[in-house]
């Protein structure tokens, strides 16, 4: 009876992968042999190391004193009034470096140190993950190399400057579409060529097992805090809705994590529709993607019938990715998370609207989460939490052209 219960629980648990790293049919580790020793080392050690008391202590101290956690859960009154409901903003934009990305980089740097790695590599799209990685490497005195698509280097200049000031080396990815996908390819190649001293900090819930699970766990602090904060504020730990934007899916994974098994909480992910779902210039993976393999895991991805990955488009560099993490692919397939999308235009409008109504300039990525508010009907008593994944300083150049 007891055994049966455990089996049932395992089977039904949507937030964690099985021992091979599969969420349903998605996940796994599709990697060339050259990567195997490093990935296997992580697979074998990540749970043990991150479960140690000394690790947990050091992590929570850095999250508190360096990253500035817990981040506030802000009751957005004017926005609530407008949509005739209760809207709460989880203020990841107030994290040090301006986005949720640092939750993961602090965790992974502490892990890398315990694995004896002295050289850190990362890929970045918007530059937020690159900045977060460079920041924590500077703090700990580690060498840091960030791969960034040549196109993204152009459109996210302030973040490139920040990384350099923090002592990181930024290497342009010149292959393919010169965006996040290609930066990730280059980071993987670098790891193949540096098998001994290097740890690769992937910036989202993508990549071979154990990355999707590891990154989701480091980001799960977001929903852990939401639960505590909401309980304190409203007497109920569960919101009615959680809304988050999805590139690879790390802020969404973090904001959803502790609510995935709470079936009454509606989880809504927002992808970038770019210029529109049928425009050919989009990044709405669940709407247009099919099952395939990219960057070491099986997931949904936008590709041709020949299995070549198609170039995504989004106004926001951080959502400009042709895939989605395997956790999300499964949540989509199982119907646990509702996937919506917002166009470049809608995201821009939402960003300007949030700035004027609540005094917060969001990142372009984050603005996508706000853009779908108008399409959802809320009840007066609903408690809607939006993951405000990052601030918009890095996007000012884009915003300025619309002022």
């Amino acid at each position, binding site marked *: 009876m007891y055994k049966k219960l455990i089996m049932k629980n395992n089977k039904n648990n949507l937030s964690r992968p099985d021992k091979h790293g599969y969420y349903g049919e998605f996940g796994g580790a*599709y*990697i060339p042999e050259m990567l195997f020793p490093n990935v296997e080392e992580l697979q074998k050690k990540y749970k043990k190391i991150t479960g140690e008391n000394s690790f947990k202590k050091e992590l929570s101290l850095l999250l508190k004193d360096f990253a500035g956690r817990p981040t506030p859960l802000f009751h957005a009154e004017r926005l609530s009034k407008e949509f005739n409901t209760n809207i709460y903003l989880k203020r990841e934009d107030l994290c040090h470096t301006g986005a949720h990305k640092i939750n993961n980089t602090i965790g992974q740097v502490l892990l890398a140190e315990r694995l004896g790695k002295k050289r850190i590599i990362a890929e970045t799209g918007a530059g937020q993950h690159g900045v977060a990685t460079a920041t924590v490497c500077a703090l700990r005195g580690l060498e840091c190399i960030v791969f960034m698509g040549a196109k993204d280097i152009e459109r996210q200049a302030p973040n490139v400057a920040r990384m350099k000031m923090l002592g990181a080396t930024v290497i342009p990815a010149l292959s393919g579409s010169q965006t996040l996908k290609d930066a990730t390819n280059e980071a993987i*190649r670098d790891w*193949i*060529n540096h098998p001994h001293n290097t740890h690769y900090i992937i910036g989202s819930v993508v990549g071979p097992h154990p990355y999707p699970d590891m990154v989701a766990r480091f980001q799960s602090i977001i929903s852990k805090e939401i639960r505590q904060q909401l309980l304190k504020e409203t007497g109920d730990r569960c919101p009615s809705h959680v809304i988050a934007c999805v590139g690879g899916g790390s802020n969404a994974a973090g904001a959803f994590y502790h609510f995935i098994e709470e079936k009454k909480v509606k989880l809504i992910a927002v992808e970038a529709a770019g210029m529109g779902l049928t425009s050919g210039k989009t990044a709405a993976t669940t709407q247009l993607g099919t099952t*395939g393999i990219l960057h070491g895991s099986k997931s949904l991805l936008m590709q041709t019938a020949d299995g*070549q990955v198609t170039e995504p488009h989004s106004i926001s560099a951080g959502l400009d990715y042709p895939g989605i993490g395997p956790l999300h692919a499964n949540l989509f397939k199982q119907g646990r998370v509702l996937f919506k999308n917002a166009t470049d235009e809608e995201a821009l409008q939402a960003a300007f609207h949030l700035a004027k109504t609540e005094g917060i300039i969001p990142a372009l990525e984050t603005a996508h989460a706000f853009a779908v508010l108008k399409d959802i009907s809320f009840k007066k008593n609903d408690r809607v939490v939006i993951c405000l994944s990052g601030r918009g300083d890095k996007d000012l150049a884009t915003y300025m052209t619309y002022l």
Partner: protein
Amino acid sequence: MNQLEKQFKIKKENLLNIYCTAGYPQLDSTAEVMLALEQHGADMVEIGMPYADPIADGPVIQESNMVALDNGMNLPLLFKQLESVKDRMTIPVILMGYLNPVLQYGIEQFCADASHAGVSGIILPDLPMYQFEKHYKQLFKKNGLSFIFLITPETSEHRIRMADKLSTGFLYAVSASATTGNAVDITSQKRYFEKLKKLQLQNPVMIGFGINNQERFHNACRYAAGAIIGSAYIKMLGTQVPVGDGTKAFISCIKGELPLAC
């Protein structure tokens, strides 16, 4: 026993395996390249199935993949090209590529069509061993296809034995943990290759990655049945010399039949 396995029975040393991306430099180059390699003394050919995100490959092969894709290469077309030369090829043909295009094509159809087109071995570096064993081993066997796994200097003995058990044809020993074309000095890996020799593996070993001249080829052949050359040959093809002449000179050079330092 397929053609690849037979080749290793006939010839036990100094085997030269040359890689070229299908559809490079021109869409129709595939057949011409294969025939030139056959005519001028390669012992087997490895044809790359172009993929836009080849994470195990260095710049030269990446570029050849992009050119081939721009030329319009894809699997249906490749199988047609392979079939057109099948009767003129006596040396074994191996297909190398990444898993995703194969999955989209349909792996059962892929095996059937490859076999029909005269292919005798498959290399898919991102297909994990346990997945292969669980889902695909029988399928490849049924179609008479060898499946070749990669090992590196970092691969544990336990895993080398596993790769050896699952592989047929040969075992692909990558000369260093590196992407393709990254030059390494084979002699610096002497201990690794000597260790491999001592393991008494069931499959012959072919050494690849970074082999770009006569000296490296011969060094590799001291420790293994032969060696695999990719980036250096692609680079030569990229210089626009006629495929036949270029291939002839390239192979003579590698084998040391020409007194040139090349």
